[in-house]
């Protein structure tokens, strides 16, 4: 009997030990037990399922990641110079960064948005805003290069930008700051009533993506924070959140937070098109740069345009309506059906959702509750579609899946909350690490979301990674949203500060990605597309070197007759026609950068020889087994010397 009880006790002890282990395991290895690791692991040589385009924030660039792995695939230089790729340093891309303020080598990028066809992401172009010196860029998704940049006149901090209508009719660009229009020397304290805002509509060429500033709508001088075009039933409208309807000019954290409600501005752009057709616009003199990169000449040109067509909302009825929305709303998001417009009132405890059909009804029945500078204000109760009650603190942005759910980030309470569109019921909440801004579901701001993941982009990482001194990375966190509850799968560091991201299934873009530029289509005026075209020409103190690069030599690799005080243009043409064989070019003492020339492309580096001697140049990209041999000499003679211009290879 005694023996039996010992055995029983032993069993009990063992069982307790095992179950104890199991419990502990379940808690500490949550990711492993739910095989999160497997779900983000992409085998070597295999591809990610989605492309993610994340704005680089204050880096000024666009980062391309693979999802679910979070692997960084490319940083596309857009508004900032990039010495790695010679972007903004070589002669070909400098014009892209030209503005009416001169050459501006940096900007603050926020919202990449992809072109759409019938409300579905089509993978042709990414449009992205530059906040600081107001600009909108177009990135071509066959080359993953910046193809066009347009400066936005009458704008100051181009934040409510650059979002795309459902057939890419327009890219919308609003202004966060109101300013005097036209600009003038005026006391800042006279802001209220005197400063105005402009909402720009850039039309997009259906075939080549070319941008044209079609018109601007002049609106009262509030801060226009974020924007989303309507879709489906609300196609033809566009919705802006506003704050600082107080029109304060100082200590905005207090003075712009006094009104209980600010507005969502609903703009009827189909009506605007009618007014344009009827000629009811004013043509105003202004100046803005329009910069276009030509893929055949491999060069950008910058043109200063001098006029803009303006529709004044206070004089043209039916263009603008204001929907009262609590507490300085930030994100303005439209659900896939186009019926609901979410105003993420960042200082509110609740989430306000307006109904498009109720708004139309209120407009048709003229149920107005006052006006702002001649623009009707609708009744809050008349347009309210629903309220998500106390979902969290500090709602910023909302995206949608394909099952009628919405996902909202909460900056202050640091979480993502899932709720049901229509019933406004809260379904789930998961913490983020820490303080997310935007979030992104593939296609989550279009008519067709692919509701597999949500990516939350965090402003703060604190203790999440190995520390790197005072400056830490920011991060993106990936959640699986296929189940009832969201599951955190992974997080990964990002470049700059990611604001918004556009995600799309890889197969929409992958087959169209270019491998090379065709040498036979190279129309660069200084290209040497064959070795026979290699030459060095002098015109006064300007010397042009027409050089070719192919495995594994630069032609010519010996140059003589250059003099101190010359301005030397190295025009490098990569003769390769094979995938992934770029060649680089660097020359000692260059004040700009290297060149990184893709197969079939021509790029130009300007070099000022300052010292007499024989100086090296070489290929910077490990191109082949004989890469180290891909080098040459340039002889620099005194300014007054008679050394003959001479160039050679293999002599």
């Amino acid at each position, binding site marked *: 009997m005694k023996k039996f009880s010992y055995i029983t006790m032993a069993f009990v002890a063992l069982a307790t030990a095992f179950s104890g282990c199991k419990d502990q395991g379940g808690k500490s290895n949550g990711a492993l037990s739910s095989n999160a690791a497997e779900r983000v692991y992409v085998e070597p040589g295999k591809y990610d399922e989605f492309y993610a385009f994340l704005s680089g924030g204050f880096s000024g660039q666009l980062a391309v990641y693979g999802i679910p792995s979070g692997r960084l695939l490319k940083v596309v230089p857009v508004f900032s110079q990039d010495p790695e790729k010679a972007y903004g340093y070589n002669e070909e891309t400098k014009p892209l960064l030209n503005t009416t303020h001169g050459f501006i080598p940096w900007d603050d990028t926020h919202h990449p948005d992809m072109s759409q066809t019938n409300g579905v992401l089509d993978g042709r172009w990414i449009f992205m805003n530059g906040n600081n010196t107001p600009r909108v860029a177009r990135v071509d998704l066959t080359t993953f290069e910046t193809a066009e940049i347009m400066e936005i006149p009458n704008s100051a901090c181009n934040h409510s930008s650059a979002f795309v209508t459902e057939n890419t009719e327009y890219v919308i660009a609003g202004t966060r700051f109101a300013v005097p229009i036209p600009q003038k020397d005026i006391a800042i304290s006279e802001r209220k009533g005197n400063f105005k805002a402009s909402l720009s509509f850039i039309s997009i060429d259906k075939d080549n993506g070319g941008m044209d500033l079609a018109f601007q709508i002049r609106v009262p001088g509030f801060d226009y924070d974020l924007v989303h075009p309507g879709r489906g039933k609300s196609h033809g409208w566009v919705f802006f959140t506003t704050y600082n309807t107080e029109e304060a000019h100082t200590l905005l954290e207090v003075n712009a937070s006094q009104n209980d409600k600010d507005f969502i501005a609903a703009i009827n752009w189909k009506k605007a098109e009618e007014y344009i057709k009827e000629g009811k616009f004013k043509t105003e003199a202004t100046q803005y740069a329009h910069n276009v990169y030509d893929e055949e000449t491999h060069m950008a040109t910058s043109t200063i345009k001098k006029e803009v067509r303006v529709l004044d909302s206070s004089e043209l009825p039916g263009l603008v309506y204001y929907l009262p929305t609590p507490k300085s709303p930030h994100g303005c998001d439209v659900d896939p059906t186009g019926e609901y417009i979410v105003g993420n009132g960042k200082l509110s405890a609740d989430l306000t959702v307006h109904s498009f059909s109720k708004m139309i009804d209120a407009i048709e029945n003229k149920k107005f509750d006052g006006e702002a500078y001649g623009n009707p204000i609708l009744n809050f109760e008349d347009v309210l579609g629903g309220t998500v009650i106390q979902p969290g603190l500090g709602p910023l942005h909302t995206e949608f899946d394909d099952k009628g759910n919405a996902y909202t980030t909460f900056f202050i309470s640091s979480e993502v909350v899932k709720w049901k569109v229509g019933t406004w019921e809260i379904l789930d909440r998961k913490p983020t690490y820490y303080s997310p801004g935007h979030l992104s579901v593939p296609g989550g701001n279009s008519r067709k979301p692919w509701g597999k993941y949500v990516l939350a982009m965090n402003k703060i990482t604190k203790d999440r990674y190995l520390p790197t001194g005072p400056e830490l990375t920011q991060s993106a966190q990936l959640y699986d949203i296929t189940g009832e509850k969201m599951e955190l799968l992974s997080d990964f560091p990002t470049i700059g500060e990611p604001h918004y991201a556009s995600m799309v299934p890889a197969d929409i873009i992958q087959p169209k990605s270019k491998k*090379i530029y065709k040498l036979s289509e190279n129309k660069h005026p200084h290209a040497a597309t064959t070795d026979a075209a290699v030459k060095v020409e002098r015109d006064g103190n300007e010397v042009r070197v027409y050089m070719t690069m*192919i*495995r594994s030599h630069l032609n010519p690799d010996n140059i003589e007759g250059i003099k101190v005080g010359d301005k030397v243009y190295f025009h490098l043409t990569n003769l*390769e*026609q*094979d*995938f992934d064989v770029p060649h680089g070019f660097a020359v000692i003492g260059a004040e700009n950068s290297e060149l990184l020339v893709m197969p079939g492309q021509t790029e130009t580096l300007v070099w000022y020889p300052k010292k007499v001697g024989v100086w090296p140049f070489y290929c910077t990209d490990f191109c082949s*087994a*004989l890469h180290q041999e891909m080098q040459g000499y340039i002889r620099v003679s005194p300014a007054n010397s008679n050394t003959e211009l001479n160039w050679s290879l293999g002599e």
Partner: protein
Amino acid sequence: MFLGVLLPLLLFVFPLWKITLEAPQYPTSLGMLIYINDFADAHPHDIKNINLMNHYVGMKYIPNAIPEFKIFPYGIVITTVIGLIIAFMGNHKWYLYWFIMMVLVSAAGLIDFYIWEHDYGHNLDPRAILKFTNEDGTAMGFQPPFFGTKHILNFTAHSYPRLGAYFLALGIALGLVAYFVGKREKS
């Protein structure tokens, strides 16, 4: 017999042979198609890229044209005309002669192909950047296989006939069949 005689004309449409080179750095293989009158890229720029690779070991550039490209098409046209005359004559013994002639012409073509390949793979620039030797100390050649698959340094080379060659072979075989059919009908 008519069919047999006409089938080799398809050589003007379909390639005769294909040489394919595979290597880890070329997830899409490099390939060269050999037509009766031309060399062609299997994918755009393949021949240029094969040349780029091969210059490291001192191999000559694959020429845009070789003299055979002028001779072969005449050969095929002439044998076809002869074949057609024979087919009209309807004498089955001549079918056999045509068959033998075609076999000899094809064999000559293949021998020529082999000689070109051998020269291409062995007649190397003495100033070649990379020189390899066989175990016995002789200079390594880079001749692609005549028929089949062969490993050459980091490449796997395949060399196989293509549709054009199959039509030629089928045409020749039909000539022989026509001979036997004709013979049986007569007896």
